[in-house]
């Protein structure tokens, strides 16, 4: 049985993987060997050659079938092995990468922190961006919903609500929309529960078709029907899920019962699903009959207070709807020139309209986070590159024992990818932890219909981002290692090589890129900081410190007369004014910085253009309002008891109005008329008050008037402003008692200090500034670390050169300067590129800036200076180390 191959062991000359043709040849060789053996056996027995061949074939059986069978099987086996080998290799790569990282934990930790910060920041911002820009609004088929506004042809970006009569006409004449719904937030509604104290809640009135336009059904019960609009219909109300849970105990039996709202019983007919809101954090919705507002012809067409939402008909584009409404607009202009001169209508995707300014901030923040990620990538690429060069010897060894170039490249990419994935996982964890906290700390930042969640798509985004990051920062080093001359590295003993001038160039370019990206971020954050600073220094014209504000409403049928309203507020404010610790107590319909109501103005004795009346701010005040807010009366007097409700109408205007409309300084004593109605009562100006920033800190004061609420008591809902000697919140109890003593069925809502109210008007700004600022700081640190890392590496690898210089008599100072100059050169280069980039990018910021230009020189100079200082600091350690090189050891080391 001597069939064993010669030599005890078979010789190996089979390659690990065979090509398809190789497999075919092998099978052929094996089979023909068998046949030849049989033939030679037969011929040895004396059979003729031809006959032997014939018999061998016959004995064999189906040769062709066997051939195909074996080839197919072998090919299949081969590809299976190939796959298994790949998997095994990959697992080996991972194991090896983990071992390498354990061996240099410093590198791993720095990389992980960098990645976690960068990917965490991107994940957090993306989760918000997705909610605001992409995630579906809480309505059915939100893609075809649009918001409608009226606007002015000359100034189409300024949008304002519809006048009721115009709304009715647009609704009837349009043919591109399935329907238009109108709604209007109600400032405050007093809800008197069966048990317990009254409470002020928020709500909307809406045309009954609102819910059908939004295609949203009630969670329980029903939404409005057109019957609810009829004048004789019983009043109904729909409540939000949140209100139903919080105030009604989530009890289904409340459906069909009645809620006492503003002193009237409204039958509760439905509960909306959680998250349904039009952005006013509203608790209840009540039907609105637009015909109620059509009675007064002036009011109907000239007062604009209806917000409108509509749904595009299937297949209709937004442009078609715009054209449709424009046609109606010009028809209405011709029909009612006095009210509708130069008016048109704007159509906006509902999401865009609701996201508003937030959209810009978020896009900017996303861009900033992206820059941070790029900087992190550059940093890690550099770090990895330096480390790869440090690992030359090890890589050369692996190449020497048979690892191919591709394999080495893949090995290094595996390491980068693993790092990126781990860093990404930590980053996502950070984002999950921090995003809700950050948003909860800044509740006024986001409109309430945008629910921020870290869900599957956000996680997918982060995963993709991690992989991309890993590839991005791993690619250059991996390619470099694959290309390196490994024989040389082995011979050199892995020292002295700096990776050649090409590697050096790549590293420098990366550092310059890093610095320039950081400069862009720093300048952006610097501009936002400067503008925020300007904003907080703005002279608001009033003093919010030590002032308490709260909302009151005189609601119920007994307050249908102005006298009753006056009595109520007089009683409360007098009671408060006599409370120890209260210095002054007044009330207003709009707290400063919380927005602006506008009306039209006519001045007695001046020409009037009825189609273009000047816009005039309207605020109604009573009691010690000016004293409580420390708003000075510049001339004339403030309201006092002599201004009887039924006496001559008096008015106080602000300084801006006095200067604009009465430039001769003769305002006091003149008479004005307000509102769209030309036959309105004339009012005499009795005083001029100092300007205050009533619309918001960023908006300069515009002409406005302070009406005397005692004379115009149609507004039942007011905010009190109470100046105290100490902590404003200490007056809260006194306020509650005063209200309860006057009318126990009324409620107090939103007790806050005025500082808090003013602060919240800055909340969104402060929030995005805080984020942008932290991104910039991270970027600066990363850039500094980048400069440090590359310099430190360069010093180590050039130890011989520095040793030689020192040995030849160079002073330590000269060597120090040599290194520092190198670092500063990169920084300066980066600075120049970065400033150029910032100049280009700052234009996008222009809309968010206040009081400074996007090219604010002091910001640019401060950033440049700060950056150079930080880079200098980063240069110092490596530079000092260069001066300490011992000439002897450095030269022996090679």
């Amino acid at each position, binding site marked *: *049985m*001597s*069939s*064993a*191959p*010669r030599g005890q062991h*078979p*010789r*190996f*000359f*089979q390659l690990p993987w065979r090509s398809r043709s190789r497999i075919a040849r*092998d099978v052929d*060789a*094996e*089979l023909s*060997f*068998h*046949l*030849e*053996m*049989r033939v*030679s056996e037969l011929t040895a027995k004396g059979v003729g050659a031809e006959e032997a061949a014939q018999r061998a074939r016959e*004995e*064999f*059986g*189906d*040769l062709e*079938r*066997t051939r195909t*069978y*074996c080839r197919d*099987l*072998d090919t*299949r*086996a081969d590809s299976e092995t190939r796959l298994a080998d790949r998997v095994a290799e990959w697992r080996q790569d991972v194991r090896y990468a983990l071992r390498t990282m354990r061996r240099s934990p410093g590198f791993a930790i720095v990389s992980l922190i960098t990645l976690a910060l960068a990917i965490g920041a991107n994940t957090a911002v993306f989760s918000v961006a997705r909610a605001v820009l992409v995630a579906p609004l809480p309505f059915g088929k939100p893609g075809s919903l649009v918001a409608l506004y009226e606007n002015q042809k000359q100034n189409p970006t300024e949008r304002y609500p519809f006048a009721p009569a115009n709304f009715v006409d647009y609704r009837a004449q349009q043919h591109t929309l399935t329907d238009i719904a109108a709604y209007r937030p109600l400032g405050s509604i007093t809800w008197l529960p069966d048990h317990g104290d009254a409470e002020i809640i928020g709500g909307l009135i809406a045309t009954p078709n609102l819910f059908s336009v939004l295609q949203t059904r009630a969670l329980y019960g029903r939404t409005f029907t057109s019957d609810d609009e009829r004048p004789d219909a019983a009043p109904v109300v729909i409540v939000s899920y949140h209100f139903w849970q919080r105030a009604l105990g989530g009890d289904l039996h409340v459906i069909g019962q009645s809620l006492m709202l503003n002193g009237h019983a409204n039958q509760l007919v439905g509960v909306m699903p959680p998250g349904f809101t039009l952005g006013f954090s509203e608790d209840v919705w009540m039907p609105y009959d637009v015909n109620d507002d059509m009675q007064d012809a002036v009011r109907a067409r000239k007062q604009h207070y209806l917000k409108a939402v509509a749904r595009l008909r299937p297949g209709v584009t937004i442009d078609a709807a715009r054209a449709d409404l424009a046609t109606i607009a010009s028809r209405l202009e011709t029909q009612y020139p006095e009210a509708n001169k130069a008016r048109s209508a704007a159509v906006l995707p509902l999401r865009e309209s609701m996201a508003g300014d937030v959209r810009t901030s978020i896009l900017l923040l996303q861009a900033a986070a992206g820059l941070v990620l790029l900087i992190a990538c550059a940093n890690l690429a550099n770090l990895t590159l330096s480390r790869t060069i440090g690992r030359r010897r090890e890589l050369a060894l692996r190449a020497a024992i048979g690892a191919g170039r591709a394999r080495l490249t893949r090995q290094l990419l595996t390491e980068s990818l693993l790092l990126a994935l781990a860093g990404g996982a930590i980053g996502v964890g950070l984002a999950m932890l921090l995003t809700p906290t950050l948003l909860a700390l800044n509740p006024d930042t986001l409109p309430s219909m945008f629910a921020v969640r870290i869900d599957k798509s956000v996680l997918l985004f982060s995963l993709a981002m991690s992989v991309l990051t890993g590839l991005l920062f791993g690619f250059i080093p991996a390619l470099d290692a694959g290309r390196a001359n490994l024989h040389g590295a082995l011979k050199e003993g892995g020292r002295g090589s700096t990776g050649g001038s090409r590697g050096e160039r790549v590293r420098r370019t990366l550092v310059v890129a890093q610095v320039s990206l950081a400069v862009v971020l720093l300048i952006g954050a610097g501009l936002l900081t400067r503008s925020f600073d300007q904003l907080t220094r703005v002279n608001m014209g009033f003093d919010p410190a030590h002032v308490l504000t709260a909302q009151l409403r005189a609601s119920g049928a007994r307050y249908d007369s102005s006298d009753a309203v006056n009595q109520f507020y007089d009683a409360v404010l007098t009671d408060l004014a006599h409370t120890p610790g209260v210095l002054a107590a007044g009330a207003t319909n709009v707290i400063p910085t919380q927005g602006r109501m506008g009306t039209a103005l006519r001045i007695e004795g001046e020409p009037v253009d009825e189609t273009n009346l000047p816009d005039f701010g309207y605020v109604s005040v009573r009691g010690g309002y000016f004293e409580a807010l420390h708003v000075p009366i510049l001339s004339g007097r403030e309201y006092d008891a002599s201004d009887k409700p039924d006496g001559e109408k008096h008015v106080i205007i602000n300084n801006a109005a006095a200067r604009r409309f009465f430039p001769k300084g003769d305002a006091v004593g003149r008479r004005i008329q307000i509102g769209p109605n030309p036959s309105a009562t004339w009012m005499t100006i009795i005083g001029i008050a100092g300007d205050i920033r009533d619309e918001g800190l960023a908006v300069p004061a515009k002409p406005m008037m302070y009406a005397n609420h005692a004379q115009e008591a149609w507004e039942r809902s007011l905010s009190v402003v109470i100046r105290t000697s100490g902590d404003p919140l200490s007056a809260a109890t006194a306020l509650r008692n005063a209200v309860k003593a006057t009318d126990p069925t009324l409620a107090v809502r939103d007790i806050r200090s005025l500082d808090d109210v003013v602060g919240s008007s800055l909340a969104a700004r402060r929030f995005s500034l805080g984020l942008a600022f932290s991104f910039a700081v991270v970027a600066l640190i990363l850039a500094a670390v980048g400069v440090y890392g590359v310099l430190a590496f360069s010093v180590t690898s050039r130890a011989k050169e520095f040793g030689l210089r020192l040995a030849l008599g160079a002073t330590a100072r000269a060597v120090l300067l040599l290194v520092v100059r190198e670092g500063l050169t990169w920084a300066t280069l980066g600075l120049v590129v970065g400033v150029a980039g910032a100049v280009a990018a700052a234009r996008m910021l222009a809309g968010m800036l206040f009081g400074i230009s996007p090219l604010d020189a002091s910001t640019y100079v401060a950033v440049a200076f700060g950056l150079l200082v930080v880079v200098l600091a980063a240069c110092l350690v490596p530079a000092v180390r260069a001066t300490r090189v011992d000439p002897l050891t450095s030269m022996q080391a090679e």
Partner: protein
Amino acid sequence: MPRTPSELLQGTVDILLLRALAGEAMHGYAIARWLDARSDGVLSIDGAALYQALHRLEHRKWISATWGLSENNRKAKFYTLTAAGRTQLRAESAVWKSYAEAVFKVLRPA
């Protein structure tokens, strides 16, 4: 008349081949000769069945193949039993043995 090889059950061919390789590495022709000699010419196997079985067994990783030189200095493919193949042989032999004994018992004249 001895049975013709084509009638051998596939499972039977597999176990016979594994047994053939239990000793030393062999090429296909040698395996056929060994089987022929060992069974006194009763269990001869044709080339087609032999090579299909060998490649099947190799795919299952019960045997492994290497190229080597034959006794007459020709390039030939040699098969060896792997550890898995040895385990398989042991298990299959036990099954076969009890099966064959059972058949014998039944066939024994009463």
